[in-house]
């Protein structure tokens, strides 16, 4: 019963659990949380009961110890019904929990991971700044060592889970900063908790095009003092942490694209049977057939690429950048195009919220920007391919 998409019976069972959970618990709330730009914290905590908030975290720290293929399964299934909610999940499970599980020390893992795995605390990761996105090494947030502490100063933006409501900070974050005097390529990472003096919510960012069921926030660090034991790894280690964690993040975002595409194909495929025009179902028309057939073929191509890349990705080792960038580059645009075709097939009905594909189309666009823009993937991949005269 194993195949590329469900490498073991456990992956298949995980998919079945998530699909049923998504259909029975997630679907019904998706449209309202998108409309209200609200993060559904109680629903998020249910993911803790399912054991997927700590999906890749070793069991010792309260997680489930699963692999990259499981990452793809969970993100794909949740995203097929609610990409916004799934993005909040990704920021917590991959950007925070996986990142700390891979890069932290045992004391840090023991202190923060059990609560992250249960959902008692919501985590996120702070990399982007108002002045530095793609050029992440251009970040300006600084950390100055003072006795047994570091003092952080700077502003982070676009931080998913930065807020859990309009006014309330998320609970705990991995924050990238440069220790004063360190060269451009040497970043460091710190754990910063809500309640730390000098750490505050700048603003919850409103009016996003899509992914509105996830909160995105600006976070401010003003003489924010964190103890030395909150430094993850040594000073300067975090550039590697970041690169390594971006790989699994991009895998998750590619899988989210797959969920969006699958749902859009299901919606347009069904509609093309039900809707008649000129006395015939839409699916009898060649132009509609092209929308459906090309969408399906592209979706399956992206799906095969993503799950293959997941099978190659080892969470503890970097070195998969070519394909983790590659799957996201391909799948993000694929999902956006498929969602666009779904709207086209549904005509006017596709343009309104009730038929879902409108929301999925808005959500899909983020995947071309967040976790690295398309252009960043193109740049990275071309760099990885330099000197490769023959592909294996």
């Amino acid at each position: 019963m194993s195949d590329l998409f469900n490498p073991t019976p456990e992956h298949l069972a995980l998919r079945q659990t998530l699909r049923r959970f998504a259909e029975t618990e997630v679907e019904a709330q998706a449209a309202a949380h998108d409309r209200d730009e609200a993060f559904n914290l109680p629903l998020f905590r249910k993911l803790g009961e399912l054991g997927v908030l700590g999906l890749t975290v070793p069991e010792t720290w309260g997680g489930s110890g699963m692999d990259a293929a499981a990452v793809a399964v969970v993100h794909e299934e949740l995203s097929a019904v609610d990409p916004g909610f799934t993005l909040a999940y990704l920021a917590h499970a991959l950007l925070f929990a996986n990142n700390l599980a891979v890069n932290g020390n045992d004391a840090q893992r023991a202190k923060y991971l059990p609560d992250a795995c249960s959902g008692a605390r919501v985590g996120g990761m702070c990399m982007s700044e108002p002045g530095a996105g793609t050029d992440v090494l251009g970040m300006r947030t600084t950390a100055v060592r003072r006795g047994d502490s570091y003092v952080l100063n700077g502003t982070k933006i676009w931080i998913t889970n930065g807020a859990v409501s309009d006014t309330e900070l998320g609970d705990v974050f991995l924050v990238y900063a440069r220790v004063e005097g360190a060269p451009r390529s040497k970043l460091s990472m710190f754990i910063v908790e809500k309640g730390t003096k000098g750490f505050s919510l700048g603003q919850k960012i409103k009016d996003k095009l899509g992914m509105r069921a996830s909160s995105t926030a600006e976070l401010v660090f003003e003489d924010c003092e964190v103890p030395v034991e909150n430094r993850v790894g040594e000073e300067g280690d975090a550039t590697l942490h970041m690169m390594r964690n971006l790989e699994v993040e991009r895998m998750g975002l590619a899988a989210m694209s797959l969920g969006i595409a699958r749902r859009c194909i299901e919606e347009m495929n069904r509609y093309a049977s039900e809707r008649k025009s000129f006395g015939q179902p839409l699916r009898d028309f060649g132009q509609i057939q092209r929308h459906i057939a090309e969408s399906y073929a592209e979706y399956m191509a992206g799906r095969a690429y993503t799950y293959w890349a997941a099978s190659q990705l080892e969470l503890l080792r970097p070195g998969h950048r070519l394909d983790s960038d590659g799957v996201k580059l391909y799948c993000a645009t694929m999902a956006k195009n498929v969602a666009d075709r779904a709207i086209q097939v549904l005509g006017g009905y596709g343009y309104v919220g009730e038929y879902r594909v409108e929301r999925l189309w808005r959500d899909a666009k983020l995947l071309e920007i967040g976790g690295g823009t398309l252009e960043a993937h193109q740049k990275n991949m071309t760099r990885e391919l330099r000197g490769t005269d023959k592909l294996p």
Partner: protein
Amino acid sequence: MKILVSLKRTADPDNANKVKVAPGGAKIVTDGLEPKVNPFDEYAVETALRLVENGKTRIAGDTVVVASFGPKEAATNIRQSLAMGADSGLLFTTDDDSLDGDLVARALAKVVEAQKPDLVILGKQAVDGDSNQVAQVLAETLGWPSATFAMSVNLSADKKTVTVGREVDGGVVKLTLTLPAVISVDLRIVGAKAVTNNVTPAAFAYNDGPRFAPLPMIIKAKTKPIAEAPLASLGVDTGLKVRYTGFELPAARKAGIKVKDVADLVERLRTDAKAL
């Protein structure tokens, strides 16, 4: 307390419209449909688990055993119930086509003799054949008390009796059975407070529906035992009593009509439908 649950795999009930009848009406064809646990059997597993739990924790010493009859692949479906929380599985291998309700009931009776459960819980029927026979024939074969179509189950504090609620036309009938007994369950049994055991606090509410298998349980289920043996090893006569002479699809539904108003509706019910 030991509970035995029987479990059948059925062709994906969510895609029932893909079921075909072979040319000539000789048999039902379900090729390409994923075999899934019969939904009512999933409710039976959920019922059994709620009886052996104290809210979110298990009562020490209580066990739930799941038995199935069918091809080797049915182990996957048993594994799903182990991931929900059942403790072990029994698979008696045979072809799906070499079974009928009577044989399953008699085979289950043999399993009961060996396993000595205090309670057997079954789905009221399988959603493929909809025969609704196994619980009744099993109870009769064993000479045990039984209650079918349970919508609620209450296990007494001394674990000697169960009181079963059954929905009937005029309301709900309550039957109290002395264990060991056989129960078949209906949809409402998975309501938040439908199953009580005098251990789980009264304030505790389950989620509606059968539980999701959480990932840690999925992983744990990998190491739970499933004992496999040929059906014949139970020493039952494997001859079938139920013979199917032919299958045909139901006639396509005729288009409905729209009625003008209530008076028109009543008139149509009286004259066209002859329902009044």
